[in-house]
């Protein structure tokens, strides 16, 4: 059969978009560093200790998240009971919360929380649900014949899990670990809010070099270092990548819970209580405490710019900005991410070109835009569109990660027969591929929404004054002492938890 080459001209659009809005600013700031004291900056004690802290806190957080997740994955994906879907959806909520809200949840339980231990706790709170989901999905699609055979031979469930299932899950656990590692290494809002002068990560170092010390050469050297680290992780991820379980594959059916599962039931309920209910309920309770009594004053205050007008705009206006930005991000990322995924199913080249922003932080983008588009004939920085564009670059790789496997999984025969019927590429995409991945598209869209709303790294650089977004306002509140600020931060965060929870619940069920 004659196979048509894909339309090369279509590659132009994503390449130009990434070129102008990602590689140009990133290139500009990273070459600035090269011309300076690159090596002495990189080998300085400050840099090495920041690099060390970035790596170890992310390793410990990702390791613990995965370890906590394994029994939960068994409980939620290998057995069935009424309400398991709600359970699954609920523990996924922290993962989609804005970084800054996660940090504020820690401050709700421990008002003076600062230091490495709280950063790691916050990371675990945020990521164990995602780890559960990734490992669980792999476990669900594991061939259960071996397990049944072992059980028949008298192996207990724990022993079966350890000697039969876990070795088969090695790759999925490794890839879950790597993904969570990336998230924990890029947790700017958490480290900025819960950190001390000793807990510095590469991101906070870049931020403080650029905005406090105004040492742009050093900031740029650090950007170079982060790019190297990102490429390293992405390459590692490619080695262990397992393709997410597809719906077409044969899967074993989960069995009903029984008494022998009691330890895992107790464990799961304990995890859920400690890692989900406690932080969330404490936060909501604090939101309703004002002047040592129960009231809704914190919520009413959100309508204002705080009693001493600390804020530039009210919570409501910030919410408007966030939603407006989010719609632009959604439009851009689905259009460009969709196109990229489609093109990548044809030829898997330059994948890393589009995935790199995922491993880089939006802090770098914010800084890059400030440096590159701060003047001249193209007034990008003074337009409010600057922030949604920066955010969409972080979201597009996410969309690709979701869409590409789903598209690759589509049965080739359907497409071939459509081609025989003379359908052109565009029609095949619009009529066949798109409808088949609609659900994945919905999930990608909800992650786009959540990432855009939660972005703090780029927003902190680019959204000031009346353009402030929700995380920016939240950070202003929580970084200043005072009971009113604290109460307002709690109230605003609990609203965001409910909204994010609703989004994830709708897209999951």
């Amino acid at each position, binding site marked *: 059969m004659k196979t048509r080459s894909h339309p090369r001209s279509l590659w132009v659009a994503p390449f130009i978009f990434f070129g102008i809005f990602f590689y140009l600013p990133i290139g500009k700031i990273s070459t600035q560093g090269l011309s300076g004291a690159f090596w002495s900056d990189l080998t300085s004690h400050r840099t090495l200790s920041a690099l060390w802290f970035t790596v170890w806190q992310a390793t410990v957080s990702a390791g613990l998240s995965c370890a906590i997740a394994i029994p939960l994955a068994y409980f939620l994906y290998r057995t069935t009971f009424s309400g398991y879907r709600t359970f699954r959806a609920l523990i996924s909520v922290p993962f989609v919360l804005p970084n800054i809200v996660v940090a504020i949840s820690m401050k709700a339980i421990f008002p003076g929380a600062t230091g490495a231990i709280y950063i790691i706790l916050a990371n675990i709170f945020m990521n164990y649900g995602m780890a559960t989901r990734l490992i669980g999905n792999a476990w669900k699609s594991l061939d259960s014949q071996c397990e049944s055979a072992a059980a028949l031979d008298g192996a207990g469930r724990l022993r079966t899990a350890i000697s039969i299932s876990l070795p088969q899950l090695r790759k999925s656990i490794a890839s879950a670990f790597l993904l969570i590692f990336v998230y924990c290494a890029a947790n700017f809002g958490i480290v900025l809010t819960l950190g001390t002068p000793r807990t510095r990560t590469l991101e906070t170092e870049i931020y403080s070099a650029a905005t406090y010390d105004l040492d742009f050469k050093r900031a740029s050297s650090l950007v170079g270092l982060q790019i190297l680290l990102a490429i390293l992780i992405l390459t590692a991820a490619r080695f262990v990548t397992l393709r997410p379980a597809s719906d077409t594959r044969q899967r074993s059916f989960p069995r009903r819970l029984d008494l022998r599962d009691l330890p895992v039931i107790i464990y799961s309920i304990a995890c859920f209580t400690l890692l989900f209910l406690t932080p969330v309920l404490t936060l909501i309770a604090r939101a309703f405490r004002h002047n040592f009594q129960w009231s809704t004053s914190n919520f009413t205050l959100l309508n204002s710019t705080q009693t001493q007008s600390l804020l530039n705009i009210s919570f409501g206006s910030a919410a408007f900005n966030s939603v407006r930005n989010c719609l632009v991000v959604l439009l851009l990322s689905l259009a460009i991410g969709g196109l990229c995924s489609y093109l990548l199913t044809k030829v898997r080249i330059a994948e890393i070109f589009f995935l790199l922003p995922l491993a880089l932080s939006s802090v770098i983008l914010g800084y890059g835009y400030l440096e590159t588009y701060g*003047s001249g004939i193209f007034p*990008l920085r*003074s337009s409010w569109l600057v922030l949604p564009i920066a955010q969409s670059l972080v979201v597009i790789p996410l969309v690709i990660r979701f869409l590409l496997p789903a598209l690759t999984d589509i049965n080739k025969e359907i497409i071939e027969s459509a081609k025989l019927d003379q359908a052109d590429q565009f029609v095949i995409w619009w009529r066949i591929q798109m409808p088949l991945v609609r659900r994945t598209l919905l999930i990608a869209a909800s992650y786009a929404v959540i990432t855009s709303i939660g972005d703090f790294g780029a927003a902190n650089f680019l959204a000031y004054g009346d353009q402030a977004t929700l995380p920016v306002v939240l950070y202003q509140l929580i970084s200043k002492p005072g009971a009113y600020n604290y109460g307002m931060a709690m109230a605003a965060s609990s609203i965001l938890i409910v909204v994010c929870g609703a989004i994830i619940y709708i897209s999951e069920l």
Partner: protein
Amino acid sequence: MKYGSKKVSYKALAAVFIVIALIGFAAIYTTGKTKPKDVTLITHDSFVMSKTQVQDFDKKTGYTLHLIKAGDAGALVNRLILTKTMPIADAVFGIDNTFAGKAEANGLIAGKLTPTDFGDVCMNYDKTWFAAHHVAPPTSIDQLTAPAYKGLTVVEDPNLSSTGLSFLATTVEKYGANYVQYWKALNANRLKVDNGWENAYYTDFSGSSGHGKYPIVLSYASSPADEIRSNGVSETASIMDGCFKQTEYVGVLKGARNPTAAQAVIDYLLAPAFQQTFPSTMYMYPIDMTQPIPSSWKTAAPLPGKTYGDNLDFNHDEKTWLAAWSAIFG
């Protein structure tokens, strides 16, 4: 079935992309521009200008005033340096004498900075504590290294707090090269260092709401006016020798899109109606000394006679002082 020619749909798609790109560029271009009657004043977080005052300004001048708060004075100056090629505001309020040198060295200001208000950074002490413990309260910062005052003082980290930096600068001007010795002696006398003014004053200081353990705190000459109890007497007082005079300025930003309007903002902040509000809203003295001062300030928060801070080059020397300080406390 026939779905139409392949080539046509790619051309159509390419056309769509080009149109979208053009719309995008146009959108960025138009949203990046400001209206001619808009004027933006960027300030630090402690600046207070009520809605009524903003409306009053708009009505009197015909401009539309926007306010941006950009963190503390240090963050404010850095934000302006980062964006100086295309300033995000027309006028700036809140650069003080500790940052004026940096602002000038970076060419932020068109013309000169104009002083609007001032205040003094002074050590405060808890009068009740000293009476109860039968210890004479210190009258000069010289005494803080003496054994009688061991473990009694809390200050702010000069790396993190402008109040802390002001005090460090005071010691540099007062003691010259011996300032390092002074801080070593303070450290040996069990000085407590906090990361910010709120922590030091509201948590660790014994004379305020936190009822902490330290009866001497680095604060402001005006602070005792806020600690007047029901008997009409302040719980605290200032140590008059060793105060730093902090002056805040307003200026037009270089490259401002609307410099005329920026000047109108400056004139408004210097007019009597606005000057009068400095003590009650920002705890600073108006630069126009003919304006009335609250009576509680006159009794409880008198101004110190001699102050420090006018003969230092912060922009040039600050890093050296901070390095020397951090070597002792780091």
